[in-house]
């Protein structure tokens, strides 16, 4: 019996010994990890494909609310690049020494829009001071991401406060954990109205834009990008690629505004 146990243990040890150089080789396979705001999903996926084609470096992208992402990075998540949907969460990253300040760049801008399900009877509205969002929603809910933390929610609340519509509309809000979840709820017809980015509305065929928030009603929408303090060397190439003409073309196709001067 003891002989069999020893043989079994020897087999396990041999297996583990053979596996370790294999896993080490896999780890060395060139990959970088990008944490980006949920609203960037479609555009960044395309940019990543172009980057991998150009350089052979694979990109693993994690999309979520910017607040959730920086929290994960703070707790040790192995991201190399962080792209936030507002300046606050990048500032938080800088304050807590999570990002390399000298790599930080304001990459993109976006617009805040009001959406409704495609077949909604709500027509186009002008969003200006005095705009009554609560009345427009009727007895349904207005859905957006968490107004306390997620960038799109924060922009939405700021805009509505400036327009004088927040107090009446606040009880009608349903908050999701990121902007894409809000988009889906409106697309499904579960909520009559939602507040998302223009770029999100463009990729979802089952919603229509019924109004655009004036740019001066909320803090400027800026998507900063930066390397994390533990970024791999290849990540610098990725960040440079995000600023390239090729990336600019992709972002602009999806409706983002490119803020930096494109390189090559």
């Amino acid at each position: 019996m003891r002989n069999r146990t020893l043989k079994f243990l020897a087999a396990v040890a041999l297996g583990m010994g053979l596996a370790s150089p294999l896993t080490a080789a896999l780890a060395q396979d060139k990959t970088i990890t990008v944490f980006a705001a949920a609203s960037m999903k479609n555009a960044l996926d395309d940019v990543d494909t172009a980057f991998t084609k150009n350089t052979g470096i694979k990109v693993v992208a994690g999309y979520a609310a910017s607040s959730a992402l920086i929290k994960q990075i703070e707790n040790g998540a192995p991201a190399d690049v962080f792209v936030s949907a507002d300046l606050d969460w990048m500032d938080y990253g800088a304050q807590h020494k999570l990002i390399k300040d000298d790599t930080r760049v304001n990459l993109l801008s976006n617009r805040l829009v009001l959406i409704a399900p495609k077949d909604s009877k709500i027509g186009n509205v002008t969003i200006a001071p005095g705009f009554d969002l609560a009345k427009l929603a009727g007895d349904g809910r207005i859905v957006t991401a968490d107004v306390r933390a997620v960038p799109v929610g924060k922009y939405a609340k700021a805009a509505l406060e400036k327009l004088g519509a927040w107090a009446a509309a606040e009880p009608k809000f349903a908050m999701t954990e990121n902007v894409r979840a809000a988009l889906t709820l409106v697309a499904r017809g579960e909520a009559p109205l939602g507040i998302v980015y223009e770029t999100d509305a463009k990729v979802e065929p089952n919603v229509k834009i019924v109004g655009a928030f004036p740019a001066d009603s909320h803090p400027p929408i800026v998507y900063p990008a930066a390397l994390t303090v533990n970024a791999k060397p290849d990540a610098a190439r990725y960040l440079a690629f995000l600023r390239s003409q090729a990336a600019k073309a992709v972002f602009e196709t999806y409706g983002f505004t490119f803020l930096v001067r494109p390189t090559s």
Partner: protein
Amino acid sequence: MLDLSPDEWIAIRLSLKIALVATVVALPLGIAVAWLLARKNFWGKALLDGLVHMPLVLPPVVTGYLLLISFGRRGPIGAFLADHFGIVFSFRWTGAALSCGVMGFPLLVRPIRLAIEAIDRKLEDAAATLGADRLWIFLTVTLPLAMPGLIAGMVLCFAKALGEFGATITFVSNIPGETQTISAAIYTLTQVPGGDAAAGRLVLVAIAISLAALVVAEWLARRAGTRFHGE
């Protein structure tokens, strides 16, 4: 001692309300299904058994999604109930109670079924020979004898409902005061930098409630056991 904010108290009260409603409303159906599975043989019995246990093996988000497409505002059942009875599940605590009830249902049925299967049929037959009709036998012989199983099932269902997260947040999202249960509140707090202290407090509350439920259930089950089995 535990300095909880009003938002946190709202989440706790909402969780308790939803879990209680889910368990109480699921109970009659749970007893009926358990009795059917324990006592009857019929075509499709295996299918019913499988259906009842589906929420236990499906990923909770899948269950929540299925609830969304059937009980949501535009879903077949949801639209029917909203138009004819005014019952709305979307974005409301009723939807949270529905998803908790569905997720807890298999945990409710199993112990009750096992308890009913363990009952000595001769006791029921004896009651019948003494003149009791089927319903009276069920209420005065079967149910009391199955009581420990009933209690176990209800506690498991309640505990599952209290902790339910995936299906609920997929179906009715996360609205403070309406669908934000303790689990959803903890989840939101952990997503926001700086929310760890509040999340920690809620975690302690959740542990305390669960422990209390288990202790009460144990005591009730032992009392039921002594009363009905003379142990």
